[in-house]
């Protein structure tokens, strides 16, 4: 049962434009949400996170939005750069001290120069 879903396997965007990656979740106990970026043959690297008490978190070109009522979050990358081409994973963890991090299936972003 996939508790974190990324319904778009791939996304192509022109350099300089905005990239929007979407993620939906089903577990209302999820309290903390993260985005990881993964290049081929490497491990995932942390990108940005958001707590459930916030609805927006910004870090440079990256902004994550959380809509708790819709159980939906999105990652905005502005402006997109060719180096952003990678697979992006959405992940979530429940409150209560558990260490389980539930990952989505990933979205492959290609930024076209």
């Amino acid at each position, binding site marked *: 049962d*996939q508790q*974190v879903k990324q319904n778009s*396997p791939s996304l192509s965007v022109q350099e300089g434009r905005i990239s929007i990656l979407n993620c939906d979740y089903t577990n209302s106990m999820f*309290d*903390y949400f*993260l985005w*990881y970026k993964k290049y081929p*043959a*490497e*491990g*995932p*690297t*942390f990108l940005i*996170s958001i*707590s459930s008490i916030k609805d927006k978190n910004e870090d440079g070109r990256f902004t994550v939005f959380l809509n708790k009522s819709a159980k939906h979050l999105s990652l905005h990358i502005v402006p997109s750069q060719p180096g952003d081409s990678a697979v992006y*994973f959405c*992940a979530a*963890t*429940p*409150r*209560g*001290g*558990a*260490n*389980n*991090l*539930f*990952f*989505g*299936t*990933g979205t492959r972003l290609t930024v076209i120069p």
Partner: protein
Amino acid sequence: NAGVTQTPKFRILKIGQSMTLQCTQDMNHNYMYWYRQDPGMGLKLIYYSVGAGITDKGEVPNGYNVSRSTTEDFPLRLELAAPSQTSVYFCASSLTPTSSGGTQYFGPGTRLLVL
């Protein structure tokens, strides 16, 4: 500062063989994790540890064992390899629990093929 290192990078096993995937971190992190990633899927937690001597099951622990005798090392043991264990295995560590905002740092992964 090497971060999280994993060995080997790639291994082919025959059904029924056993092996240990090694993971070492040099960041003095208490929390360590093992994930597997099957093709087209997200990472799934196999086991985790909150400190030396303490381990617990994750989402998909069957067929695996772990131990944590030191802060630095967290090996993953496959006793009787099965084709269903063909996957890419990632080790990660964090200073604090993820549920408290701790960032997990991942190793480069071990690709395992069971034939």
